[in-house]
C-alpha cells in the first residue's frame, strides 16, 4: 500500500538510548587489541537493546568499507567491511531472510570467510578425483 507513506500524521521522533557509544568504545578496545596482540574478537549485537537510532549511529560512525561478501550456507550470511579496516559487520540470515544473529567482528578476515581446513582437504581429494577422471577420459579418448 503506497498510501501508507502518505499518512499525514506526525509523531515525535523517539530518541536512541545511547548503547551505540558503548559498543563503539568496545570496538575501539578490540581493534587496539587486534593491532597490538593480533587477538581477534567479536561483539554479539543481539544481547544489547539497540534502538534504530543506535544502529544509525553505529553505521554512520563505522562507515562503509571496500569489501562486501556473501556466504550461502543455511541461508545467506552477508559480510561487509566497515570504513574502519579490520572491523567487519557480519549478519546471518535464515532461508526466509530473517536475521538469525548479528555480530561486529574485529579480525584480519572474518572467520566464516576462511575456508575450513577439513573442507580444503576434502576439496583437494575431490579435485584429485576429478583430475584422475579427466585423465582416464583422455586416456580412453
Amino acid at each position: 500500500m503506497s498510501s501508507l507513506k502518505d499518512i499525514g500524521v506526525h509523531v515525535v521522533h523517539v530518541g536512541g538510548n545511547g548503547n551505540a557509544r558503548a559498543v563503539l568504545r568496545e570496538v575501539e578496545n578490540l581493534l587496539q587489541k587486534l593491532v597490538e596482540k593480533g587477538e581477534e574478537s567479536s561483539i554479539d549485537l543481539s544481547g544489547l537493546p539497540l534502538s534504530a537510532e543506535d544502529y544509525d549511529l553505529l553505521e554512520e560512525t563505522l562507515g562503509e568499507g571496500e569489501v562486501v561478501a556473501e556466504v550461502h550456507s543455511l541461508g545467506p550470511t552477508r559480510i561487509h567491511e566497515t570504513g574502519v579496516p579490520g572491523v567487519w559487520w557480519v549478519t546471518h540470515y535464515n532461508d526466509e531472510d530473517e536475521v538469525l544473529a548479528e555480530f561486529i567482528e574485529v579480525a584480519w578476515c572474518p572467520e566464516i570467510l576462511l575456508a575450513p581446513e577439513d573442507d580444503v582437504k576434502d576439496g583437494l581429494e575431490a579435485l584429485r578425483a576429478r583430475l584422475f577422471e579427466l585423465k582416464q577420459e583422455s586416456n580412453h579418448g
Partner: protein
Amino acid sequence: MNQRVVVDPITRIEGHLRIEAETEGGIITQASSSGTMVRGIEIILRGRDPRDAWAFAQRICGVCTLVHGIASVRAVENALNYPIPPNAQLIRNLMIAAQYVHDHVMHFYHLHALDWVDVVSALKADPKATSELAQSISNYSKSSPGYFADMQKKLKDFVEGGQLGIFTNGYWGHPAYKLPPEANLMAVAHYLEALSWQREVAKLHAIFGGKNPHPNFLVGGVPCAISVHPDHPGRGKGPHFRGGAGATAVDLTGLQKVKDIIGQMRDFVDQVYVPDTLAIASFYKDWTQYGEGVGNFMTFGDFPANGMDDPSSFMIPSGVILNRDLSTIHELDMNAADQIQEYVAHSWYDYSVGKEQGLHPYDGETNLNYTGPKPPYEHLDVDQSYSWLKSPRWKGKPMEVGPLARVLMLHARGHEQTQELVGMTLRTLDIPVQGLFSTLGRTAARTLETKIIVDAMSGWYNQLIANIKAGDLRTFNETLWEPSSWPQQAKGVGYMEAPRGALGHWIVIKDGKIDNYQAVVPSTWNAGPRDPQGQDGPYEAALKGQPLHDPKQPIEILRTIHSFDPCIACAVHVTDPEGEELVKVKVR
C-alpha cells in the same frame, strides 16, 4: 456384544477430556464426555481488579489464546457501559479474525488431519502424480514434483531414523484411512507448510498484542498506541528493530507487515486450505452420515462494525436454530435468567440451590466437589457426576456451537457469500444439504467460515488505515479507566464467537472488585455432560450411532470429537450398560 471402551488421553486437542461410550455390534449406543482437569480460574478471579481479569481468563486456553481475553474485556466494558474507540474495534476484529484463520488452519492440519491422513502411506506416493494432483486442485506455487520428492525424502529420513517421535503408535494402516498415497503425501507436505505459515501469521497478534500466544488486551480499547512516523520508515535492521523504527510496534513497518500477513493468510486459505478440505472430503463422503449431534445450533454473534451494543452491525449474527429448522431463528437474550443456564447434575460441583437446578451465569457458582473415584481409576460412574465441565443449556435445550452453527446461522440469515460457498461445497462433493449436519459437515463449515473471515480482513485493515490517515490515532478510551469512576455495583456480559463457538463471560462487579465471574465456553456447550433431564451434550449425541471398527484404535471417535475442535482436557471410556468391563482399552 456390548463393549465399554476407554480412550485416555485423547490427544491433538487442547487440554484433558474424557468420554464414556458403549458400543453394541460395532456401533456406539451411548457416550459420556468428561473433562478431567480443573483449575478453578473463576474462583481465583473473585475479588480481583476487573481490569486484570482478561489476563486470568485468557489463560483458560493458550490455543484459542485470544478469545477469553476479548470476552473478558467486553464483559467489563458491558458492565461499565464503556465505549471503545473505532480503531480499537477494528484492531480487535483483525486480531479475532487472525485467531480464526490461524486456529482453524492449525486445527485442520496439526490436530485433525492425522485422523484422515495416513503419514506412512505417503511414503508410497509418486511425487510426480502428487504434483499433478496438487496442480489439479489449486494454483499453489509449491507443487512441483521436486518439491514433493524433497518432502517425501524428508519424511523417509525421519521414519528411517527409527524414532517416529510424535508419529509413534499412530493408527497407520487402519482401514478407515481412505486417501490414496499421493493425497496423503500432499497433506503431509501441507502439514509442514502450515507449521511454518502459522508462525508468520501469528505475528499479527505480536504487532498489536506484543506476543502470541497470550497477546495483551485492555479494558477500554487496545494497549498498542499507534506510532506512525512519515519521516522515519522502518528499515528492518538488526535483530531488534526488525519490526520497524517507530516507537511502538504499530508503526508504518508494522502496519505494512499486517497487510502482508493478511495477504499470506488469504493466499494460504484460498490455495491450500480450501482445496485440501474439498479434496480430502471427497474421499470421506460417508462421514456426512455420522456425528450429527443435538441438531440445535446457537451463535452469539461477533465482528461488530458499530460497537458491541449494536448486534445488527455484527458480521456473524446471533440466534438459535432448533431441530435443524433453518427457517425459524430464535432470538437470544444473554441477560435473561431463563435462557442460558448451567447445570451440574453430572458435574463435580455443588450448587447452593441443589444439583438439579440450573443457574444463569450472573448467579453462577463454582463450588468444586469431587465425588468421582480416587485416582488411579479405571472408569467413572457416569450415572453420577463424571466431569469437571458443567452442562449449559438454552431454555433447557443442549446446543451445538462453533463453525457449523455459524455457517448455518449465516446461511439462514441470508449471507450471500455463505450461501454461495455452501452451495459450491455441496455441489463439488455432490452431497445433500443434510450432509452438513455431520462430522464432515462440521469440518467443512470450519473451512468455509475461514474463507469468509479472511476475506473480510482487508476491509477492516483499510478502514484502520483510513482512520489513521484522517489523523485518528485513538486506541484507548481513558474516561472510565479509574475504578473510582465506576458505579458501586455493575454486571455485564462479554461475548464473542470464538473459533470453537459461542463464548460468554458474565461478570458481577462490586466496589471495583470482581464479585462473581462465570465463563461459559464453547467446549462446555459441546462437551458438557448430560443434564438433569438426561439429555446428552453435543459430543455425546454426536458419537451415538457411529461405527467403531476397532475399539483399540478408536479413530472414528477421534474424527467426530476432533471435528468439534475440543478445547479441554479429556479422556474417553466406553462401558456396557451392566457396567461390566469387557475391554480395557487403557491398560495400566
